[in-house]
């Protein structure tokens, strides 16, 4: 009786061919290597960006020059006075912003300056930075925001 109910096993092999596995992995690897932008700078200022509705995406990531404005991170976790950070250093002398942006525009005239400003920073400091950007003729700016939930 028992033999009667015995399952018929299919004669085919049940293995998945793994020979092409390294090729598939390599394809994925190359994709991520190409899309990766490694330089995610260490933030020296606290930035929590505000939400907005009318946001646009900026596709050309390589044109973007970030400027961070927010209360400085102090040793021990405190929040200091508002400061401006470009790349991985805090800019103490605001005239240096002009110099820096001027050089960035020489390298890439289509540069977009993305301002990542903390929500509690007073706009006075933002105006000071913007005046420097105007002097350097870096006129394309983006106020970085999150997308507001509708």
């Amino acid at each position: 009786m028992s033999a009667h109910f015995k399952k018929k096993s299919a004669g085919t092999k049940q293995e998945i061919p793994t020979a092409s596995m390294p090729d598939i992995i390599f394809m994925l690897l190359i994709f991520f290597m190409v899309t990766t932008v490694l330089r995610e700078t260490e933030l020296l200022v606290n930035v929590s960006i505000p939400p907005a509705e009318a946001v646009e995406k900026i596709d050309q990531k390589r044109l973007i020059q970030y400027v961070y404005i927010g209360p400085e991170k102090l040793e021990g976790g405190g929040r200091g006075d508002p400061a401006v950070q470009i790349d991985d250093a805090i800019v103490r002398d605001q005239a240096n912003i002009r110099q820096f942006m001027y050089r960035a525009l020489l390298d890439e005239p289509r540069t977009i300056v993305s301002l990542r400003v903390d929500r509690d920073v007073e706009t006075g400091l933002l105006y000071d930075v913007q005046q420097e950007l105007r002097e350097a003729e870096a006129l394309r700016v983006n106020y970085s925001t999150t997308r507001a939930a509708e």
Partner: protein
Amino acid sequence: MPLLKQRVKRDAEIPSASMADIAFLLLIFFLVTTTIDADKGIYMQLPPPIEDDQDIPEINQRNLLNVLVNADGQVLLDNEVTNVAAIRDIVKRHILNNGREPQFSLSPDKAVTSFKTKRGLPYVTYIEVLDEIKSAYNEVRDEAARQEFGTDYGTYKARLGDDDPDVIADRYPLKISLAEPDPD
């Protein structure tokens, strides 16, 4: 004969069994470090720097809508006190006025919205107001695109070729002027 060295047989192949593992490790590294999402936000064009001998162009006062915000977030729109939520509608009326009401613009392509705040205003309110002004323009463009092409402005723009003129943007140009800040 004893001088002849005996050749040791070695196989000259690189072992490739660990290849997949190495590739996996690299893959995981790039997977973790990758950030694909592009930056998003409100795109603006700053006014060019003022030269000393430059004449400031005269704008007909009725084409100019002044948005002033003080340090407490109170809004003054063409000398009338309003709140942030009301800005969008007034800006839309200003753009689409076409000379009907005397205090608003003569035509959409002449309408300018000037935006100015006190230095003490928190950035979050600055963005809120700018967002309202930009949304007003977006809604005007959306409505025009829907009437004429049956889709919203974003879809219409995506359909345009490289050399096609963007008639909606030409008709309703985005004229938001970031005013010269006060020194105080």
